């Protein structure tokens, strides 16, 4: 079943055309990696999918579970099961981490006609997920990402993801800024969320993450276009040969 179908997506940021016709289809249960050099439009793509303002979709469409994703405000996308793990998670002093988790989860549950979790049910759920992410409970009562290290912020993103249990998870450079131990923890967290009814799209700069989270498909995004797609062996080839050959190949085609 198709979870996400991006068709000829053109996106402009200010007066700069960032995406020049991206097409991509992700099925339920699949993990896709989008790789590419800096400035290729990878982050723009996932931000547009999550509903970030400030981008103009000038052509193309995105359908998510058969619905027009671009017509929904960000909160509706979240409630329908789209989750973006931020490249730079935002620090929000004054808002408790646990408060945000609970408010988010209850907004989702309410949208699905489920009762809110009581404090006890909620805490036992969060504690279980925190163990998985090797996070101390003291994180719960700190401000959202406030004073967190880079690794802690990324773990916190995956914690949120594991609590919100999205159908479509978008991971924006979740591996950046992580040391090898933190990378393992984060990758384990993501792997534990792989399911037949869930799709994961990872944006990454390096093949390293793919050693831990094995993708079904790998796409090369460059200059706002997907130049090449393949299986996980493509990532290894990119690691070895860089991106230039893909660009040349595409230019020649």
């Amino acid at each position, binding site marked *: 079943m198709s979870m996400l179908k991006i068709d000829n997506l053109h996106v402009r940021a200010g007066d700069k055309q960032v995406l020049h016709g991206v097409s991509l289809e992700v099925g339920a249960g699949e993990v896709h990696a989008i790789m590419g050099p800096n400035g290729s439009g990878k982050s723009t793509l996932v931000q547009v999918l999550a*509903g970030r303002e400030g981008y103009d979709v000038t052509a193309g469409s995105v359908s998510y579970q058969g619905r027009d994703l671009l017509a929904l405000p960000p909160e509706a*996308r979240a409630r329908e099961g789209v989750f973006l793990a931020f490249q730079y998670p935002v620090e929000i*002093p004054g808002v408790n981490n646990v408060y*945000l988790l609970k408010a*988010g989860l209850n907004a989702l549950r309410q*949208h699905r006609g489920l009762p809110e979790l009581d404090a006890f049910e909620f805490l036992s759920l969060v504690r279980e997920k925190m163990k998985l992410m090797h996070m101390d409970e003291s994180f719960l009562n700190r401000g959202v990402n406030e004073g967190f290290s880079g690794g802690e912020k990324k773990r916190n993103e995956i914690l949120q993801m594991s609590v919100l249990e999205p159908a479509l998870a978008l991971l924006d450079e979740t591996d950046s800024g992580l040391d090898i131990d933190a990378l393992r923890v984060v990758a384990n967290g993501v792997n534990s969320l792989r399911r037949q009814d869930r799709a994961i799209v990872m944006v990454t700069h390096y093949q390293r993450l793919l050693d831990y989270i094995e993708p079904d498909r790998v796409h090369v995004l460059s200059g706002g276009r997907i130049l090449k797609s393949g299986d996980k062996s493509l990532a290894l080839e990119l690691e070895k040969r860089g991106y230039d050959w893909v660009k040349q190949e595409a230019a020649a085609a």
Partner: protein
Amino acid sequence: MSVMTLQESRPAGERYRAEFDARWSASDALVELRRAALERFVAAGFPTQRQEDWKYTNLRRLEARTFAPATSTAVALDALEQHWIANAGIRIVLVNGHWMPALSSVGAQLPGMTLLTLKQWSEHEPAAVAAFIAQTSRAQPSALEDLNLAFFEDGVVLDLTAGASPDQPIYIVHQWSDAAAQLMSSPRVVVRAAANSRCTVIEHFIGSTASECFTNAVAEIEVGTGAKVEHYRIQQESTRAFHIGHVNVRVQQDGRYASHDIALGASLARLNLGTVLQGPGAHVDLHGLLAPLATQHLDSHTTIDHAAAHTSSDENYRGIAGERGRGIFNGKVIVRPDAQKTDARQSSRNLLLAPGAEIDTKPELEIYANDVKCSHGATTGQLDGTALFYLRSRGLDETAARALLIRAFAESVVSSVGPPAVRSHLEKLLDERYGKSS
């Protein structure tokens, strides 16, 4: 427009003199003190924007109107009660500036503490009250403090003996009756905390009258050696009210004073909060929240005068201006030549919620000693679009996300509020103002 609001051609000073003459004819010491204050006020007039301290706040609207000194009126309990903070402490209710014993806590006297009303005292011993007022007032009162001195009729005197520590806050309600119109209220609160005593005083200014009224309130606070006073000032006047507040604080050696200046109400409000740290080890914490909406103009001018060595201060003001609201924060810090080892910190952070909103913030440092630590910082910005998106991407709708960020911005002031009843009252007010965050 009602007849009452027609502007008169006589100068304001003459009009207030006429009100004065109609009210006081005796010639006891207290009336003499009042008359001297009135004459100083008439000579000085209302402050104008030509004065540096009043640069951002124009009082012409206030000056143009005539407000009659409010007299004591009987009012029904249930009309007023709904606005009080429940279980805030020992309650003293002043309606239109007059103490209403029937509305106040019964048997309010606690060990080591004396509470009395200025009116009863001045009826019996005007000379003693005159001496007391002269002794507890600032040496050089401002014009509007003089206006209060000329017209005050009632207020609260709270005395704490050495070491006294009442187990409840003193909750002073300054309330307008619903029918009040074109009235002026001039309450005075005097707190004298003797050595090593401690207390919490909550002043709550409320009114739901739809008419214009003018509150001109004075508080004089003496914090003795090693004493500790927590002072809450929650200004929630009706949106057509004028509110001028004067708080003068003197802190002795090792004394601590904390102020929580919460400005939410009134059409035009100005607080002059002055603290003098008179002995080594004295410390003040000034927390403030200015939250103008609609066309409200809310102005807090604070002064921290480090007059002794080894004194410290920490000031944290937050401004949140929405719609066409305007906030003003001016934080003056003076470090006297002998006040070495002073440690003064000031932070003013401001949030603009709409293009028409405005906040003017100004630190004013006068440092005459050389071995001191003084820091200040001021920022003004809008809600962070990335943070807003982050919250929405977790499923919170836009209104809830905005409300949550606004509450987060105010959190450092909200969390400084100790008494649970006051804190939940403030949280409720913020929820009403900006939408519920949950």
